């Protein structure tokens, strides 16, 4: 089966690797800023998900472009699988984290009907 142009991994891709990495870095930083700026735990958590996706994009870009010097074709194909595996496991971990994280947030809401990180001050020195 032949695939449409951007999908064809048997051809050279003319989008530079740096573009993907830049997008990944940008999303990572925006997510990180969001974690610092935002106070609502659900939104903070969404920003963390944004960071995880930025990481996934970085992994896949490195996996596709294979910049390892001196690697044979077979080795490059195996190396490329490593990056994809990492992405699969990040997705699995994110799913588990979402289940637990939203569970914690719901428990808090049930307890105090208000979830705002600034209000949380029972734990102070």
């Amino acid at each position, binding site marked *: 089966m032949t695939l449409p142009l951007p999908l064809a991994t048997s051809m050279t891709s003319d989008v530079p690797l740096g573009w993907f990495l830049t997008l990944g870095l940008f999303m*990572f930083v925006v*997510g*990180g800023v969001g*974690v610092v700026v935002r106070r609502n*735990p659900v939104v*903070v*958590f969404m920003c*963390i998900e944004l*960071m*995880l996706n*930025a*990481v996934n994009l*970085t*992994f896949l870009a*490195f996996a596709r472009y*294979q*910049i*390892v*010097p001196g*690697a044979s074709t*077979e*080795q*490059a*194909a*195996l*190396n*490329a*699988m*490593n*990056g994809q*595996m*990492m992405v699969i*496991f*990040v997705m699995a*971990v994110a799913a*588990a*984290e979402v289940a*637990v*994280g939203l*569970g*914690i*947030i719901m*428990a*808090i809401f049930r*307890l*105090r009907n208000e*979830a705002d990180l600034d209000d*949380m001050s*029972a*734990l102070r*020195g």
Partner: protein
Amino acid sequence: MIREQPIPTIDWLTLAPMTTVVVAGLVALFIEMFRPKQSNGPIVTVSVVGLALAGALTLAQFGMEPGPTFAGMMVRDQVGLVLQLLLIGVCLLTFLFSDPYLREKKIAFAEFYQLALWSTAGGMIMVSTTNMLMLFLGLEVLSIALYCMAGMDRKQAKSQESAIKYFLLGAFASAFLLMGIAYIYGPTGSLDLGGIAMIAAMPESGYLTMAVFGVGMLLVGLMFKAALVPFHQWAPDVYQGAPTNVTAFMAAASKVAAIGALARVLSASGALQEFWLPALFWVAIATMVVGNFAALVQKDVKRTLGYSSIANAGYVLVALLAHVKKPDQVPLTTALFFLVVYCLMTVGSFAVVSLAAKGGEEGTRFQDLHGLWKRAPFAVGCLIVFVASLIGIPPTAGFFAKLFIFQDALSTGLVPLAIVLAVTSAVSVYYYLGIIQATFVSDEGARKTVSANPSFGLNLVCLFCALAVLVVSLAAAPVSQWLRGSTQLPGEAQARSELQLDSGGRVGAR
């Protein structure tokens, strides 16, 4: 070529301890399923038996041929085995005093035992793998279980608050860790830590920058977990808010796992140490200073112990830095010995503090411990031993642990670290004695304090930890000698010479 991917060879014995712990958790889950909401006795029994079996399987592997299994996903080596055994021990000790405590707090949920077992398994993975994917998974297994355990007291706002803080900051740290792994994966194509040493040898400078960025982010993620300054803010809050038995487990197990992983990462990236050693030097100083000085002004015992655990992470970082600087001269033994002693002291002191819970109430401020001496003289006697060891008073193991680190730091030229260690230890005397003093103050004043009767399990934990702290100190030299056996991480020899690069195919990209 991917279709011919072979099935990796499996050394089941290397996986056996971790698998046993996971299976013990599953059996505990089934017991709870078939007889819900009854006494947790059988679950504790099954868990303890499972942990003992896992401990035996770990012990059986000492002296066996070290090496990777499962395509390098797990490795057997002396360091990993010692730390695995330590994690199993921490879990076991926590379980012994958990049941009475949880019943006093009226949160005797059986899920605690399963989560703690799986969390232990996650830590065991972290300390004995060189694969960054496994490192990440182990970390998440350890942490996600801990988030749930921290929030298991569902009627207490502070327990929930500690859970959400721990969760959000932990997930944030994981994102940094992953970004680091991505930028190490990029130039090596491998998820193995051994790849870092290869990048350092590469001629292109762009690869080096990538690797330095990657290792930096990876270290930030791990420093969060180990609660090193400036990534420590979560620790006191979480330690204070979580149920005390969870705090004991968390303070010991997550620190051991994080330090173990940190040791592997630092050893593997020894070739890049000109970049990170200066930064970590200051991190160690800041951790010791902030941990000890912030502990001075706390009014809550668990918080004080939380800052004390931050300070202890600083001490052990000094040992790691000394080791990485001169791996041939200074073995990792010092750090391992310190971690063993730290776990005994920490679990023991939190076990005593857990006595403050009675009838669903728990106060952990200093005045809530007033009069404890009269009600539980044996536990307080043991607490004195733990505190003496935390301070580092000579006959106890804590003294020798700190002394070894001090010597290592001096012999590797990290003199400022040695001086800061000594000075901050002296400062710590004040707040540690405050804890002891609180238990002796009479409670016949304005406010009556309550405390649970020490259970048999708790007394056993106190007795074991106190004896171990004293006995280990008597045997400090031989124990240290025994640990010295072959406690070199595989990464080390690699970074120094290319001799072992092809042993077991650990470095995928070769």
